[in-house]
């Protein structure tokens, strides 16, 4: 049996695509001169790392139900090790562009990169 699409199906698809594009545009940030990684656990800032000024290897161990280690070098940052069951955070790999995030949902830890773009404006988006 084949699917017989109705007109409404295309409306659903259009709504999904349009909202995806609008969201993507609102989160897109230009290449930055300054890059700061913000490490948050359940809304509290654990540390901020200036990725563009990083010398050598940076590591941070976080505690909690599912502890883990974050490392940064050469303008990029990642979850190096985590004891969470799904390992999605480790599989995300390195992130380096402003607007990118890496998240460990079980541990409630998020790495977010923010930057000042080449135009000199220091605020791209404010999310409350």
């Amino acid at each position, binding site marked *: 049996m084949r699917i017989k699409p109705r007109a409404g199906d295309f409306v659903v698809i259009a709504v*999904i695509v349009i909202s995806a594009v609008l969201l993507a545009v609102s989160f897109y940030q230009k290449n930055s001169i300054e890059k700061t990684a913000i490490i948050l656990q359940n809304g509290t800032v654990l540390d901020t790392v200036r990725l563009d000024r990083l010398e050598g290897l940076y590591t941070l161990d976080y505690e909690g139900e599912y502890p883990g280690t974050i490392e940064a070098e050469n303008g990029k940052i990642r979850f190096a090790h985590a004891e969470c069951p799904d390992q999605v955070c480790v599989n995300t790999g390195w992130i380096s562009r402003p607007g990118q995030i890496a998240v460990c949902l*079980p541990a409630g830890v998020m790495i977010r990169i923010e930057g000042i773009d080449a135009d000199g404006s220091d605020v791209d988006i404010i999310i409350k």
Partner: protein
Amino acid sequence: MKKLALNSILISLAVVLSYIERFIPLDLIIPVPGIKLGLANIVTMFALFFMGLTSAVAVTVLRCILASFLFGGMSSLLYSLAGAFMALMVMTVLKTGYNKAFSILGISMGGAAAHNTGQILMASLMMRNAAIFAYLPVLLMTGLVTGLLTAIIAVNLFSIVEKNKSVKLI
């Protein structure tokens, strides 16, 4: 009594599908938390189309609780409940236009998108941070593909079940 038995079968089927889904490493291709095929949504759709809303709610809630307790852990319960309930809500609304405005395709895709939105909403509440919405565009687009896949499976399943005449479309 027959309804109770069928509901129980649906719940166990959904739990098994949630389990199998964990072995499909979709997040290695697209490294976004919570990315899944949404196979259990086929069961939700079946319950919604053949058993009614009460049954669909029961199957969804019990499936989420069982799957989280068995394989996911407590933190995954809130995410799966948020996603599953959003999906159920949207699919219930879209189903009112079934065969007129929408086919299984639109209902399934709408359900997938709602599921992702629900999970991201819950995640942003839990992490007290909206930055996680950056994942939503990717999830929405992949939801179109997984929604199509589940729609194909559901259409075939529904036609077999209807021929069998043991349960009726409502």
